[in-house]
């Protein structure tokens, strides 16, 4: 029986895919047949290694584009490259993100600007260019990685939470606007996930967060990647404008 998760022939761009959730997502989409375009702001060498790994492990097409998602011109140039090479884009995963924690009263202007540049502006820049490529084929799926913090808030995360709440607002509006073009826009709100972003947490905070997860385990990047796979695939072809929590029943 043919898998409903079959992504053969689909072109997918995953931003921030050198590590963590983005890397797990890129591998999952490749495993199910998509040609994956990796992106990160990190070193070209690392991206090239990741690209070769995808090609080797999944016998799949892969590409790597190094650019800053918060740089408007760089994003446009990247989509020009995608257009020239593939003439299409089927799946966009807006995953690139920057974590900034600080209490109210200790937030600098540059911290706000940098966090919003990556987490929020970058989502709009990519979504806009992707939608223009997708509308040519009257089909596409855009998945924005938000956060549980953008839904319910968290102490010390006014900036990060604000930037991720904005991602939810972007998702809801874009879903309404792009539905007539058969472009679906959904978001995933991960909870406590085992990535580099949490390795600086103190043991006390780590345990506090873990205790707030009803399933009593930390989420793995693959848990989020599997949700992305569902939203990228035809199994979710009638689903748009939804915010899917991947949080093990977490209460902040």
């Amino acid at each position: 029986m043919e898998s409903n998760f079959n992504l053969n022939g689909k072109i997918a761009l995953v931003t921030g895919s050198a590590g963590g959730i983005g890397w797990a997502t890129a591998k999952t989409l490749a495993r199910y047949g998509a040609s994956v375009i990796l992106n990160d702001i990190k070193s070209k060498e690392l991206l090239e290694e990741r690209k070769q790994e995808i090609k080797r492990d999944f016998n799949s097409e892969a590409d790597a584009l190094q650019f800053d998602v918060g740089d408007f011109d760089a994003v446009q140039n990247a989509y020009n490259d995608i257009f020239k090479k593939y003439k299409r884009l089927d799946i966009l995963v807006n995953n690139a993100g920057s974590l900034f924690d600080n209490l109210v009263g200790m937030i600098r202007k540059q911290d706000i600007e940098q966090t919003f540049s990556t987490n929020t502006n970058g989502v709009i820049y990519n979504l806009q260019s992707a939608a223009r490529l997708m509308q040519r084929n009257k089909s596409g799926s855009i998945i924005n990685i938000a956060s549980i913090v953008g839904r319910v808030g968290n102490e010390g995360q006014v900036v990060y939470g604000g930037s991720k709440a904005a991602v939810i607002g972007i998702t809801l509006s874009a879903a309404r606007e792009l539905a007539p073009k058969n472009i679906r826009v959904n978001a995933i709100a991960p909870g406590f996930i085992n990535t580099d972003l949490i390795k600086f947490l103190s043991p006390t905070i780590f345990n506090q967060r873990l205790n707030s997860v009803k399933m009593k385990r930390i989420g793995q990047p693959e848990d989020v990647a599997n949700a992305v796979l569902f939203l990228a695939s035809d199994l979710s072809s009638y689903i748009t404008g939804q915010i899917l929590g991947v949080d093990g029943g977490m209460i902040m």
Partner: protein
Amino acid sequence: MDNIQKLIKTFTESLEIEPEIVTDELSYGSSSWDSIAHLALVASIEIEFDIMLSSDEVIDMSSFKKAKEILGKRGIQF
């Protein structure tokens, strides 16, 4: 079909207007050329001429005359 005919065709089909209306005076906001039709027009032009326009070009394309100028800068001769 030469380039000017191709461009006129994208305008007539995207805006659902007659070819004789497609002159240099045709501008955004006139006839059926609203914001929704504009994006359909842009997509149609991009497919016809196999290019991807920048956001600034999409916004600046406010008339048939301007469309020719923008495409001209992309090496498409009229």
